[in-house]
């Protein structure tokens, strides 16, 4: 729920924590499960997601403001697919060094509701600043959760933390598999709900 009285900063904070898209509604949950095998992968995919959310929101806002036209979902998705093809071409060497299937997970952002939700529901009928802060909050919130999940997955699954070796033997090798992604994402959502319930 977004109120007209809320400032840009309030919108940003709201999307970052109390209404974090991934933890609150499960939008883009596949990113936390399939795209957090390593810190690098989570950072790359989260950044691409953040960029796409902002680009789609600004495009939707400009169309709504200048042309009084709401961009249909298929057009947003096609535009996202083209942007992803450009990202793939520009970062081909970087993607090749990331875990297997990173390219597939990145391509799936073209069908991810989290990438279009702000553009479809909010940005087309508001000011540029509010659209920008709102979408940046949503993207940063997703990136933050992905980095947190990846930190624990990498630490438990490979014994590394953000690239540097902490344990000689990984404490829980299963954490780097999809199993670990599902369990740690579930734990993150449970933690988020418990903290939210205790908030005054």
């Amino acid at each position, binding site marked *: 729920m977004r109120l007209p009285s809320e400032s840009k900063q309030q919108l940003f904070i709201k999307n970052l924590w109390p209404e974090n898209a991934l933890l609150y509604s499960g939008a883009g*949950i*596949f990113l936390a499960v399939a795209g957090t095998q390593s810190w690098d992968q989570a950072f790359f995919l989260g950044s691409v997601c953040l960029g796409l959310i902002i680009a789609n929101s600004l495009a939707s806002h400009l169309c709504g403001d200048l042309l009084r036209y709401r961009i249909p979902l298929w057009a947003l*998705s096609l535009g996202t697919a*083209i942007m*992803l*093809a450009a990202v793939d071409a520009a970062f081909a060497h970087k993607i090749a060094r990331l875990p297997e299937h990173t390219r597939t997970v990145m391509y*799936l952002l073209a069908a991810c509701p989290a990438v279009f939700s702000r553009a479809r529901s909010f940005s087309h009928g508001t000011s540029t600043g509010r659209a920008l802060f709102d979408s940046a909050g949503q993207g940063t919130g997703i990136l933050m959760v992905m980095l947190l999940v990846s930190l624990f997955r990498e630490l438990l699954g490979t014994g590394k933390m953000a690239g540097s070796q902490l344990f000689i033997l990984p404490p829980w090798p299963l954490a780097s598999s*999809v199993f670990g992604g599902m369990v740690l994402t*579930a734990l993150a959502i449970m933690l988020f709900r418990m903290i939210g319930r205790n908030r005054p």
Partner: protein
Amino acid sequence: MSLDYSLSLLSGIFLLQPLISFGLVPSSSQSMTRHPAGALGYGLTGGLMILGLGSSAWLLHQLLLEPLRLKFMELPVLLLAMWVWQRLIGRIFSRFRPIIDCLPLYFLNLAVLGSGLLLIHSAPDGIAQALLRCTGMALGYILSTILMAFFRERAEPKTTSRPLQGWPAFLLAGSLFWLGWQAIASLFKG
């Protein structure tokens, strides 16, 4: 030869299906697997879409995009193919309500798109194996969705704690299914 075909089908069911094996979880899957009745239509629709998009994605990739060096067009072409298959299935099953009701959830669905991409990149030797693998992925998706719904229907009402309900319950059930699928896959893998 028949061993290769069987392995393609089995690896599609247990190793390559998008929902459990790769964690490509669409946002709609949590709410649609609360009850087996809803999950049946959802799973069947998803299975049909995976079968249609997966097979056409492989054919498009092998016969058109790869020979003409148009791999950068892969994603827009697959999105277009997904839209075509959604319309086609809507026409064919226009009298079958469970499928028609769930079809809007597959307009842009990452499990379906993911199946197409995984099939292209797993690159089986020939068309027969690719189609069998795709059929396996569709069967695996249907099976996972329905089994997950039965599991959640039995287990979730008993968990009184609110933080466990919804997504956490879905993901924890999914992780148990992943273990089960891997155990079955270890019987024929390698």
